[in-house]
């Protein structure tokens, strides 16, 4: 009995958002960026699932919650492969890849302890590039950090 129920609980999303193809290592950072730690909505998180091109992947399904493009752009910092599905009335009404913004503000902590952004009450700011991998350069101290190593504030 439980097999069907479990499968149903995960699959049945009437309205909400599914974020798929998140690298396994980035899953919980993605949860934090989405601000889902304290959600009261139905939330399913899967990780270390088999994935063809990622090896293992994570997936987030959240009911009755939709996000702005800005939030997905932040996800792109740590999970450039992520795919966002918007579900309305059981139908996928939109499916798209996240895209990395040119400038990332207030998301990532600079790895340089001598950076002004770690010593003043201020927003951090990074210039992002994604070739070949996501790389962030601090607008202030010019230190670079790989997106996958970025510490999310």
């Amino acid at each position, binding site marked *: 009995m439980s097999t069907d129920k479990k499968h149903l609980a995960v699959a049945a999303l009437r309205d909400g958002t599914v974020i798929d193809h998140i690298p396994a290592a980035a899953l919980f950072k993605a949860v934090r960026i989405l601000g889902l730690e304290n959600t009261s909505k139905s939330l399913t998180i899967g990780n270390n699932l088999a994935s063809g091109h990622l090896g293992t992947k994570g997936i987030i399904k959240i009911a009755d919650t939709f996000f702005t493009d800005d939030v997905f752009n932040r996800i792109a910092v740590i999970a450039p492969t992520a795919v966002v599905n918007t579900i309305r009335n059981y139908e996928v009404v939109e499916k798209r890849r996240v895209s990395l913004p040119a400038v990332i503000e207030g998301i990532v902590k600079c790895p340089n302890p001598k950076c002004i952004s770690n010593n003043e*009450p201020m927003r951090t700011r990074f210039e992002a590039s994604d070739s070949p991998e996501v790389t962030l350069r601090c607008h202030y*101290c010019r230190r670079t950090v790989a997106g996958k190593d970025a510490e999310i504030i």
Partner: protein
Amino acid sequence: MNSRSFVSIEDIGRPQIEALLDRAAFFEAHPDSRLLEGKLVATLFFEPSTRTRLSFETAVNRLGGRIIGFSDAATSSTSKGETLKDTIKMVANYADLIVMRHHLEGAARYATEVTDIPVVNAGDGANQHPSQTLLDLYSIRKTQGRLDNLTVAMVGDLKYGRTVHSLVQALRFYNPRFIFISSPELRMPEQYLQLCRDNGIEYEERSDFGADAINASDILYMTRVQRERFTDAMEYERVKNLYTLRNDMLAESKPTLRVLHPLPRINEIALDVDDNPKAYYFEQARNGVYARQAIITSALNIELPHDEH
């Protein structure tokens, strides 16, 4: 954010570099221009640097400007826990321009974002010190008559020396050839080697400070190898003497070669070099005043008198 600030040599291109150098040349030729009459410049040295502060303050004073400021964060309200933002906003009420040095990297960039008056970076940690770069470029152009197609040897601490990093960045417009001479642990960082490759700049890395490198060079840029960079004191003792320039090493060098050094010097240039006409490091420091006069008047949008005729 304000656009007349001067925070990093990376921010400006070849035309702006040359406009600033031309401006510096004007001040060398006209040392008594009173172009800053009625202007107030704040020199905020959150980190002490007597040499740089004196150079900036001389630049302002010789142009007839006035100065307020502090030479050590211990004498400012920073020591009471005031944020940089608040200090900058407060000083911006009083002054026409801020010259600031700070031990934190990116501090000057941030300052430009919280005030409308121009900010000149007089050094932010290990990051940038663009007035030093400008005076280096001025010294090179003045002694060689050009910036293009020069062979520049950089010697000593190429890993931590921000002056050599900024100079590589600035010279990328001028088709230089670089000879990077250092011990393996103090090599030029990969990002600057990549910058050279991206710009088609020829460079050579070597660990021996041999006569062939000196004799091929137009500029010999010496830097200080700092004891604190080494975990092994024995290694420091070995390395420091390998990268010391002595007068006899200049015997076969080009007649036009000039030896530069950002100062202070410890032992990387022997005292017997000082009397060689190729030694240029003290004049280089004097050029710093002209370069800073150029930066300050440019940041304040002050036109030079000869522009009006």
